[in-house]
């Protein structure tokens, strides 16, 4: 059985700088993985290569059984890849419901879109604000809308870039529950800084540093790793 996601020697250079440098990464089916690392470690660039927003300089990407290196974002999305970007990417001028419907329509077709929309709105507890215009909502609500967009398409691989950023502790708690439930349906990769949050969803962690994978393992082991502390605190090993 193929893995949900696999990269081999994935490299992305800007000018002479390698933001992602020969990354070999494998994610199993229904696996939940967190990516951590200091700012500029290449996590978001790595994500953008996976989604097709950036075309990698070298290496290859496999999603499920397809090799998707160099594909356009819409083609990658059609394989069942749901993406939450670092800054919430939503349609500000449209209602919450319309945002979610647009995603459900792509994933399920016109006939089943309404039911999928209702389900996603219910799941993210957006019922009260379903008719509101997204541009007028708070940051936390917009984060939830974007998650509902991801969920509504019933993806098999979910990429979440800092889903907990700017949320209250209560919201983070709810988010952890939702992610826990999603992990039973899909493979998930989460880029996150919030260590408390990562401990809550307790998973395998991959640490990025300077475009490479520094260490990979269960969260407690990684936290004790001296090299990880060094890169986070900026010490030279």
């Amino acid at each position, binding site marked *: 059985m193929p893995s949900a996601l696999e990269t081999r020697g994935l490299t992305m250079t800007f000018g002479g700088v390698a933001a992602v440098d020969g990354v070999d990464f494998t994610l199993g089916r229904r696996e939940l993985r967190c990516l951590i690392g200091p700012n500029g470690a290449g996590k978001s660039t790595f994500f953008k290569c996976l989604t097709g927003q950036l075309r990698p300089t070298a290496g290859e990407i496999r999603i499920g059984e397809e090799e998707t290196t160099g594909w356009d974002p819409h083609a990658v999305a059609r394989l069942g890849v749901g993406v939450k970007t670092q800054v919430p990417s939503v349609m500000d001028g449209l209602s919450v419901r319309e945002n979610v419907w*647009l995603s459900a329509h792509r994933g399920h077709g016109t006939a089943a879109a309404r039911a999928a929309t209702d389900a996603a709105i219910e799941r993210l507890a957006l019922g009260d604000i379903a008719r509101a215009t997204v541009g007028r909502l708070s940051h936390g609500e917009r984060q939830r809308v974007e998650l509902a967009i991801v969920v509504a398409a019933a993806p098999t691989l979910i990429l979440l870039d800092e889903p907990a950023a700017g949320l209250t502790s209560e919201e983070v708690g709810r988010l952890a529950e939702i992610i826990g439930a999603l992990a039973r349906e899909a493979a998930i990769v989460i880029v996150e800084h919030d260590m408390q949050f990562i401990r809550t969803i307790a998973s395998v962690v991959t640490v990025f540093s300077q475009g490479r994978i520094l260490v990979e393992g269960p969260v407690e082991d990684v936290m004790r790793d001296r090299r990880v502390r060094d890169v986070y605190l900026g010490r030279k090993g």
Partner: protein
Amino acid sequence: MSARPQLRGTLLALAAGAAVLALAPLVAETYTLSVLVIYAILALSLGLIWGFGGILCFGQAAFYGLGAYTYAVAAINIGESTLPVLLGIAVPFAFAFALGAVMFYGRLSDVYLGVVTLVVTLIFFRFMNATAGPAFAVGEARLGGFNGIPGFPILNVPGHPRWEIYDGAFYAVCAGALLLVYGLVRWLLASPFGRVAVAIRENEGRAELMGYDARLRKTVLFAVGGGIAGLAGVLYACWAEIVTPGLFSLAQSAEIIVWCIVGGLGTLAGPIIGAVVLGYAKFLLGQQSVIDNTLILGAILVLSVLLMPRGIAGVLAAAWARAPRRARRARGRPRAAHRLRSPDRA
């Protein structure tokens, strides 16, 4: 939003539009009204792609002129008007599709898109001006350079070349065409295609991450706008009974943009109202020679942008929303003004 209020809103709008169009001949000549209705169709074409697709096309006149020229050339060669009318829509549609594909698949940004469409219009303008002489002919039809093509057969009852449609009947055809186009555009915008088009306008990156191919969808929408502009061109050709390179002029393109801005972008009623109001103002101003026409239209544009940022349609919708609830209920359903503009809001 469910389909039923959408349908009801569309039917209401169509009924109101039909009533206005039927009563209009009481206050103005059908000859003048016909061209105003043609302008309205033209404005609708840009209102669709700009207001809902977010594609600012500086060269909508290119498709308008292309439709008019295609009709004129085909009518001279064929005689009976049915096929020329269809060609007058199909050729600009196909041309807009090809041009759109180049621009959208080339990932041109908004500014360059404006420049490219502007230049295409200028090329048409220069080329048509340079087509004097017998060398420039399509079949029987001479393109005629600066003087254009006069004396082609005008619209006739399908299948009966001798039953020409003019005056009141021609106005009825134009009015019917406007209602038909309006209804089709409303339907298009309420369909999944239209909703995704608005989503792409709102956030192209997100639409692509959802799995929608923004390039293809923008190309199709652009082509539909081109086809509608072509229809307006066909009707204009039949109205004026001559086509000249002036159809491709920069002034013509700019005028369409001004109609949309003054009328209210992001609505369908707005561009129609803008075209009719400004078109009629231009007609009245053309009858005097004290002040320069374009100066006044320019002043109207500046004032309307400053005083009515959402255009005439925006002002009307706001007035409607402020009207006492009882009055609204008496007139039908509450908040109909909002629904008129949905799924869009801006």
